[in-house]
């Protein structure tokens, strides 16, 4: 019951959160003195042509009027049309979302599978050379700019060693999407060649996104494990003669993971969604991050606000899932 209450309260809070987000992004993107009408009309446009197009697109109306009209549309699920592609924003985002999710999920999995065990090992061998090495790597992982890392990985693995492709999601022009997830489509078709190609294309962008996320997880897990390992219940378990393996992986890790799990939601938002904007651009990964960059470069207001709403929604939903997982890891919060 308590879990349902968590879901319910989160969903209620979704509305004012999104409303605030829309108001903020709408205002910022519209008050910047950039003019999408001029870009659409083209450099050769006459003053009359620009004025006529401005009226047609409704940009001559007061900002509050434009905002209310926009909110009205969003309430009906309509994010408006892209000023450039002439298609509904929702359609453009839907077409690109699977690419970002495929990459984001792969990156989170890689970060968890690498970051959590390394954090535990680092804590268990505190102040050993191994611990120092892991800490140096994790601090570097947080400090390295992702666009630089992306380019270095391209140079090493794609250009020098020729192990991975340079960019894109699959060899050649992508096939007509079904689920939109290249790996799932390939498995459904039992097309192992396509699956292998999709995985090879996933490797470098996943690695780029996962490195800072894994670094953050290493630090959190290490801190969590260190805190728990010095607690009384661990002292008691040791006194009872439990094997060290059981103490660490069953009791310490579970207690330490409560903090780590809640951070995964944050990591998804900060490292994966925000990182996707850079990583998708460098690896020519046709997801919503690349869509956002193109929208910003051309002042496509509807594209910018649409992307932000979706990113906000994804962030909120991921955090809801994380809270539910948290309630299983640490049942105390639903008692």
């Amino acid at each position: 019951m308590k879990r349902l209450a968590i879901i319910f309260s989160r969903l209620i809070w979704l509305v004012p959160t999104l409303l605030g987000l829309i108001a903020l992004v709408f205002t910022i993107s519209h008050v910047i003195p950039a003019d999408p009408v001029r870009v659409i009309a083209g450099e050769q446009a006459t003053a009359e042509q620009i004025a006529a197009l401005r009226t047609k697109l409704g940009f001559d109306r007061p900002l509050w009027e434009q905002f209310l009209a926009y909110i009205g549309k969003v309430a009906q699920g309509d994010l408006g049309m892209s000023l450039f592609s002439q298609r509904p924003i929702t359609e453009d985002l839907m077409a690109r979302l699977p690419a970002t999710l495929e990459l984001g999920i792969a990156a989170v999995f890689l970060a968890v599978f690498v970051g959590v065990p390394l954090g535990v090992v680092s804590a268990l061998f505190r102040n050993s050379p191994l611990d120092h090495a892991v800490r140096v790597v994790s601090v570097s992982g947080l400090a390295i700019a992702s666009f630089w890392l992306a380019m270095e990985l391209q140079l090493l693995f794609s250009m020098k060693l020729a192990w991975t492709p340079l960019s894109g999601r699959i060899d050649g022009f992508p096939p007509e999407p079904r689920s939109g997830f290249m790996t799932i489509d390939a498995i459904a078709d039992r097309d192992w060649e396509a699956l292998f190609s999709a995985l090879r294309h996933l490797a470098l962008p996943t690695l780029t996104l996962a490195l800072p996320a894994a670094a953050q997880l290493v630090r959190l897990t290490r801190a969590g494990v260190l805190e728990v390992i010095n607690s009384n219940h661990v002292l008691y378990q040791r006194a009872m003669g439990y094997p060290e393996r059981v103490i660490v992986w069953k009791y310490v890790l579970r207690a330490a993971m409560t903090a780590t799990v809640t951070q995964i939601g944050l990591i998804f938002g900060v490292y994966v969604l925000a990182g996707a904007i850079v990583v998708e651009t460098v690896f020519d990964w046709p997801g919503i991050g690349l869509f956002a960059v193109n929208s910003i470069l051309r002042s496509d207001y509807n594209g910018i606000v649409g992307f932000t709403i979706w990113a906000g929604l994804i962030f909120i939903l991921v955090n809801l899932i994380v809270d539910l997982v948290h309630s299983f890891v640490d049942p105390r919060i639903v008692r």
Partner: protein
Amino acid sequence: MTTNAITNTGRLRMKTKMLRMVAAAAAMFLAPALASAQGRYVHANNSPFDNLDPHAVFDVGRAASRINMYDGLYRWVDNPPKMIPWLAESHTISPDGLTYTFKLRRGVKFHDGSEMTSADVVYTMERMLAMKKGPAGLFLGSIAPGTTQAPDPYTVVFTLKEPSAIFLSTVPEIQVVNSKLVQRNVKDGDHGEGWLSRNDAGTGSFALRRHDPAVGFIATRFKDHFYGWEPGKKWFDEIEFRSVLDVNTRVLGMIKGDYQGTDGYLPYDQIERLRKEPNIQILEDESMRVFYFAFNMSRPPFDNVHFRRALNHAFDYNGFINDILKGSVARNPSPNPNNLWGTPKDIKGYEFDLDKAKAELAKANIQLRPITINPLAGFPETEQASVLFANALRKIGIEAKVEASPWNIVSDRFRSKDTMHDMVPLWKSTYYADPNNWVGELFTTRHHGGRSTTWYSNPELDRITDEALRITDQAERTKLYDKAIRHIVDEAVGIFVYNTKWFGPYSSKIGGIRFSPIGSGQEMRWAYFK
């Protein structure tokens, strides 16, 4: 099933043999047709192909979809650009210069197999005028809606509001769409914009096969294209244009062989990087894209000619061209490209000489104020030029503040003389190869708030350029543009720096690229794998 299983029975062996014979016969039969089979050319483009509508898209970055899938009445080829008959075979102009009658080629087919007629050309013009986007800017001022006529299926008559000598040089931009097909797909009076943004209704050399707005498009060679495919010559069977936003990824992709071509205006250090690669060729051509500092002429001290001349003497042309740009461009001392007719060949422009600059400042005898330079963020050349210039200005006692902004913000500021910065370094590209594209648009009163970037107004210049639009005799027009260009340079209405060179990076396996400043070498019907 394994090979052993097949060969185990005689029946299956026979079947295999027969299949092999059929395959061999088919191969022989197909051999002549496939002699020129060329596979797919892959191009990495800097702009996204999220809209394929030729009447919505007009920027140089996305020329490939328009120029390969659609045809205009005439077509620009080569450099200096020459116009060749294309969908239209010929034209006549009425003595008053107002009526242009085009005779269309017969038997031209759209990609769906239907014939193109004058009704399609009329629909195309009306659609552009109604949509008011992209190429419409070339026609809105000269053609009124509803005035284009189709007296018979192969004749089109355009009636201009006033004589306009540049009209002819804009007809390649009348990219004809299949009117019946587009009209069938109109939704809520949208002129079929939604549908045409993802589909193709053209007659062009390549027909759309796949489009993914997030990736790009693939188009297949259109065998029934009116221009024909000369037997024995080579061509591409398919072209793929992908959007690859990141310069570094485009360059690495070229080196790796993922792409066979990319855009011809890469930063010069990337061109030098590509030059070292054995599998890449860099084609070079002087383009028609003039780099200049636009002055906001509406406020003092820019109203003082000596002040403007002082600015012109304070820009280090050689330092910028030879040291910063490593000699990759050619000095262009006037607003019009050196390689276009109408540009005076003896015009010298200004030289970098701070003493002369100081002398001009003394003559100006004005109260100086700090001036602002607004380079384009993301275009390092504009920022480098601005910083170089600001340093030199300081030496002659003028304080200059450099503040970069993205293009969409800069272009918005051009709309008003109050919001435009004092100086903006930028390029003027070729939209039609006529001197009016530069001197006739950048400095004339009729283009204030639109194509003019200077807010300059001079009755004599307006008169000369208007006169040059009224008459069609090129010799007479040359004289007028000569006069107009000399006037602008003498009055120092801007700093004119260089004419861009196009450096087209292509795989060394590619041949037949024909560069034209309009289209930037992206028309693929002439190209082939060697």
